Structures are given as structure tokens and as C-alpha cells.
């Protein structure tokens, strides 16, 4: 399929100066071969991963999970319980690794922080009027600063799909830059705290075409995203393998062009170990082992973790496990 042409390392930092330069660059990206992308993603999903490779993949996938709860009904108690689960996903097996991060709403960050303090589990918070992103910029940056001040070290922001689809790329670009600035803990009144990682949610289910996904990916990376994430999980179409493939190619080409590595996070709709392993195969085949690490690839999921734990238990005990033996969350 068509890959983005890569020249020598080039400086793209000037692209965000004006609407015209951004548009020229984004519309100059080669189009995505839709049939090719879907076929390639389907083909990579047919690999058979067994025994020791499967065990390795399951442990890696557990370490990559952003254990998420984003419900209006979230309570401090639920968030504490989820955070405890993030630290020790399988209390019956000390060799089970902890997950990558916990992902909650900004108002729930303090409760998760209580439990996660001192651990290496990251604390992600959605911000910027998640999930619609339809709020004034000042509200979005305030939302972000509040989450960072409360202890979040990763921020999952949503782009303004309305502005993007209307072609106002500069507006989306500037918003990401602003939110990125707000991710700086020192600016939020926490001197000495590290800058929070910024994950930019493209909400690919609303972008309509793979070409738009590729453009949005590049736009987010140019504006300084540390991670690009597929979806909020709040619209019917969430992460799909072809969309993730297009985004993986974008981060690969971006690193080839600028030297900066950006992570990818598919979120929503990934519920089984089989699905997760298909994504890992795709990562390995598309961008290589550099991305097979929780710092560079994450799964936004909630029910996936229990299935990973059940499969892990099957491999360690030799008998099939059941959902009765894992927490409901």
C-alpha cells in the first residue's frame, strides 16, 4: 500500500505557522489505499501466536493496558478499587505485571492518585471537555491544568472534530499546542513536577475516511502530541485494525522524517486477548519492536484486562478459567 514518502530528516516546525502551510502539507500527504489497508490489517490478524510467544504477548499486553473507567456513575470507591486492580491485576499470582496506567475523569484523579502514589503505574486523565471536545479553549486548558494539578501524569485530550472536518486545521493545531503547554506541571503551580504526557484522541469513528485519519495523525504529531489515540470509546465505531494500521504508519513515517518517536493507543472495542495479540502483531510488523513497549503502545480498555488475566491463568494452571474468578469493574 501507499506509504508516506520520506525524505531526509526535515524540519517541520514551521508548518504550524499558518493555515495555508498546514493545509498544503496535510493535503500533500499521499492518500490511503483503503482496500489495501483493510486487507493488510486482516492479513496480519491471521497470525497464530502460541505457547511461550503467547505468554510473552499476554504479559506485554497487560503492561500496555490503560485501565479505563469513564462513566458518569464513577465514584471514588470504584476508582480506588480500579487503581488497586491496576497495581495487582491478579492477586493470586505475584508474577503478574501491573498495567500501564489508570485512565479516569479529572474529578476522579485525586482518588486514583492516593492509591497509585509511589508506584510506576501512570495516571492518565481525559481532559478538554471529553468526549465531545465542544467547549471554549479556555475551559479546555483549565480542565487540563486541573487534572495535572491533581496528579495526572498523562493527559488524554480530544481534538475538535468539528473544526478538523470543516478544514480549520490551524485551529485544531493551536488547541493542541495550548493544551500541551497546560500539561506542564510547573505552569499548573506544581514546581518541579514533570510535564504530563499528552495523548491526542482523534476520534477516528467520526473522521469518516482513512485519509482524514492520516491527516489528523500528522496534525497531532506536528503540534507536539506524545501519543495519538484512536477513540474516546463513546461513539459506536471505536478502534479498528485498519485505522490503527494507518496511525502506526504515520508514527513510523513521522519518526523517519523528524527523528521524534510518538506512541499509539487504540481504545474502545478491544475486548479479547485474541484482538490484543492481533494489534501487537500489527505493531511489530508495521513499526517494529521499538514500539512494543508500554511507553510507546497502549490499549485503552476495561474489559480486556479480565480476558488477558483469564488467558494468563489458563497458561499457568493448564485449566480454563472463568469470569467468576476476577473482579467486576
Amino acid at each position, binding site marked *: 500500500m501507499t506509504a508516506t514518502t520520506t525524505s531526509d530528516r526535515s524540519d517541520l516546525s514551521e508548518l504550524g505557522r499558518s493555515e495555508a502551510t498546514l493545509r498544503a502539507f496535510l493535503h500533500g500527504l499521499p492518500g490511503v489505499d483503503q482496500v489495501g489497508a483493510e486487507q493488510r490489517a486482516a492479513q496480519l490478524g491471521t497470525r497464530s501466536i502460541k505457547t511461550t510467544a503467547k505468554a510473552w504477548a499476554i504479559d506485554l499486553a497487560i503492561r500496555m493496558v490503560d485501565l479505563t473507567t469513564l462513566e458518569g456513575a464513577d465514584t471514588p470507591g470504584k476508582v480506588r478499587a480500579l487503581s488497586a486492580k491496576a497495581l495487582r491485576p491478579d492477586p493470586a499470582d505475584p508474577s503478574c505485571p501491573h498495567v500501564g496506567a489508570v485512565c479516569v475523569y479529572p474529578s476522579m484523579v485525586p482518588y486514583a492518585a492516593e492509591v497509585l502514589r509511589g508506584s510506576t503505574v501512570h495516571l492518565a486523565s481525559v481532559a478538554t471537555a471529553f468526549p465531545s471536545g465542544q467547549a471554549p479553549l479556555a475551559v479546555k486548558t483549565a480542565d487540563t491544568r486541573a487534572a495535572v494539578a491533581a496528579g495526572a501524569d498523562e493527559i488524554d485530550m480530544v481534538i475538535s472534530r468539528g473544526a478538523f472536518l470543516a478544514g480549520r486545521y490551524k485551529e485544531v493545531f493551536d488547541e493542541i499546542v495550548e493544551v500541551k503547554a497546560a500539561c506542564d506541571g510547573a505552569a499548573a503551580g506544581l514546581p518541579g513536577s514533570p510535564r504530563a504526557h499528552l495523548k491526542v484522541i482523534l476520534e477516528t469513528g467520526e473522521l469518516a475516511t482513512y485519509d482524514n485519519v492520516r491527516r489528523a495523525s500528522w496534525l497531532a504529531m506536528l503540534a507536539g502530541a506524545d501519543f495519538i489515540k484512536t477513540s474516546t470509546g463513546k461513539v459506536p465505531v471505536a478502534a479498528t485494525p485498519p485505522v490503527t494500521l494507518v496511525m502506526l504508519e504515520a508514527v513510523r513515517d513521522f519518526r523517519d522524517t523528524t527523528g521524534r518517536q510518538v506512541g499509539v493507543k487504540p481504545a474502545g472495542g478491544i475486548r479479547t486477548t485474541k484482538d490484543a495479540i492481533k494489534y501487537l502483531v500489527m505493531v511489530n510488523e508495521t513499526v517494529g519492536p521499538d514500539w512494543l513497549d508500554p511507553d510507546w503502545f497502549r490499549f485503552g480498555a476495561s474489559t480486556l484486562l479480565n480476558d488477558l488475566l483469564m488467558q494468563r491463568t489458563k497458561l499457568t494452571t*493448564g*485449566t*480454563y*478459567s*472463568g*469470569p*467468576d*474468578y476476577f473482579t467486576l469493574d
Partner: protein
Amino acid sequence: MSERVAVRKTYKLFIGGKFPRSESGRSYLVEQTNVALASRKDARDAVVAARAAVKGWSGATAYNRGQILYRVAEMLEGRRDQFTALGVPADEVDAAIDRWVWYAGWSDKLAQVYGGANPVAGPYFNLSAPEPTGVVAVVAPADSALLGLVSVVAPAIVSGNTVVVLAAEERPLAAITLAEVLATSDLPGGVVNLLTGRAAEVAPWLASHADVNALDLTGVTDADLAKSLEEAAAGTLKRVLRPPAGPVDWTADPGTGRMTALLETKTVWHPKGS
């Protein structure tokens, strides 16, 4: 004009209301007919289907379950010739249909007979009600291909359980034909899942499966296998129906033991006031 070539039938598994081949692609020959040879992964899939069906089936009203089971008996009646063509004696087909109707009638009577109000020393209503145990794995008996199978499946599902049943290895054709009856009689997919193959290969996976709640070993003839299956079942404290000590007369009055063995009793205390 060339002679017509008849379509030969491959007998497949029955999982979640569908008739898939074995995941392993294997089959074996019974009476010159290909029958799918189930693997452990088919058993795994069957348990997933059975578990998914528990909520709807156990949540249906007892009356509704009875109606659906009665409908199965109606459909069995219409397939009588098919069973006799497979070598099932006509009187066994009759007995199997009668047995099915008999169990269907129990669906809205179990709670009255095996539940009820308990006298307690206090101002409470105290009520016990039988509830299904969940997913039941069954090894069907080999000595009676149809009546024996009906006699182990019907008592398990009448109370709201769902089953994964391993048909007798040497006599699976009547079992799959029964599955075809079930598939066309309003029984929700996944309530009965039928595997054909070797008990020694598949049953241990069901016995140790943490998402199976009870194990019926009626069709296990090998004492060592029965013992190891019981031991595996103990790992998650499953209810176990042991294999019968001697030959079973399947035409005799079955009693209610098979139904009540697969029930849990829920007791509720309710304040009476004054």
C-alpha cells in the same frame, strides 16, 4: 442423463445454536458417516456459548421454559421416522418423547415441590426457592442413544441450567439429530450444546473448567477416568453426579433426582412486622 448423486451428510457439532465443524478439522467414521471429532477448543467454545445463554434461559419464566420444552416434544414427534431410520427402536423414540414431555411439565412445579416456606422462630417470612446451578457439563450414556440422552439433558435444562453435553462416542447420530430438533424448536441458542468425540479427550477439560458449575458423569464407563474427572471437578467445587453403579433401566420412572441434583437453594428472610 447421468444418475443423481445423493448429498452425503456430515454430522457436525451443535454450539450456540449453530452447527460448526470441529475447530480442529477432525472427524471420525460412525456407520459409514463422517462425524465431527470435538477438540478441547470446541469444548471451550461450547462453555462460552452455554454461559452466555444462562442469563436468558434461567431468567425466562418457568411457564415459558415449559412451553419451549413442550415445543421440542412436538418437533420430536414430527421427526420420528428420522430417528427410526437411524436405528433407534420405535418404542425408544416414543419413550424419549414421553420423557421429554414429563420433564417439560416439571418446569413450573419444581419451585412448589422443592421450595417453600420454612417455619422460623421470629417475625419473618422465610422462603426457600430452588435456582439453577448454571452451566452443566454432561457425559451422555452410550447404552441408550436417544432415551438416555434425553434423560440426562432434559432434567438439567428444565430448571434453567444450560448444558454442554458430550454424546456417546459410538452412537452420536441420534444425538446430532436431536440437536437438529432443538435448533428448530424455539430453544434459545446455547442452552444445549452438543459435542461428538472422545470423552477421555474432552471431558477432562470440562471437568477442570472454572466456568462450569456442575458435572454429570452418567456416561463415563471407565472407573479411572471417572475418578480423575471427579478430582478435577473438585478444584472448583463443582457439583458432581457420579456414574451409575450398574446398568440403568432408562425406561423406568426417572424420579426427580436428576433435576434436584443440579439446583441451588436460595433462602430469603423477610420481616413480617408486628
